């Protein structure tokens, strides 16, 4: 497809369950970002990949959060032992440049995670 694709669109997890969220960036985009957006707030940075290298994971809230992009294209955000405070929309974005400098980021529709 032409845009950033995320799956699933919606995920309901029981507390303590592990989840995996997938992001297919725009083909050829070097940079890939994950953001977390709580209801009524702006997106908060989680992590950044340049090709397969995870260059910044300063936004990951705990060691229960793990992201990978092994072949420099598709990325997976994994959350282990989910907790209610993990409920949010998880957004993936990609850009053709390196990092966020001077290039626009294209966002996917997001995955809405609800932990019950």
């Amino acid at each position, binding site marked *: 497809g032409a845009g950033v694709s995320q799956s699933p669109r919606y995920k309901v997890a029981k507390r303590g369950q592990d989840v995996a969220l997938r992001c297919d960036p725009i083909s050829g985009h070097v940079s890939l970002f994950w*953001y977390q957006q709580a209801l009524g707030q702006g*997106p908060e940075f989680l992590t950044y990949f340049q090709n397969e290298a995870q260059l910044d994971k300063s936004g990951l809230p705990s060691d229960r959060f793990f992201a990978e992009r092994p072949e420099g294209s598709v990325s997976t955000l994994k959350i282990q032992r989910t907790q209610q405070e993990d409920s949010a929309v998880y957004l993936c974005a990609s850009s053709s440049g390196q*990092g966020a400098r*001077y290039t*626009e980021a294209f966002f996917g*529709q*997001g995955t809405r995670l609800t932990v019950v």
Partner: protein
Amino acid sequence: SQQGEEDPQALSIQEGENATMNCSYKTSINNLQWYRQNSGRGLVHLILIRSNEREKHSGRLRVTLDTSKKSSSLLITASRAADTASYFCATELGGNKLTFGGGTRVLVKP
């Protein structure tokens, strides 16, 4: 923590009117971007303004940047019902990430 803060938090206007929203930020930036988000289309990039630019136009959008005041404004002229959305400013401090504000929720009434 959020670098940018939008003002107002919510805005309700009639179709055809102009809408203005402001963004203030705390530290020096390389660029500032505005995004729109609605339930149908997710986050969409609107405009990017570099730190050495003062004003930029794109269609019905006008963005200003005042680095001395650490603030930016987004003006939407001749608003349409389709402009109903949340608008976010995002700052790029250096390298890897955009830092978003809390957003302005705009309602354009037909």
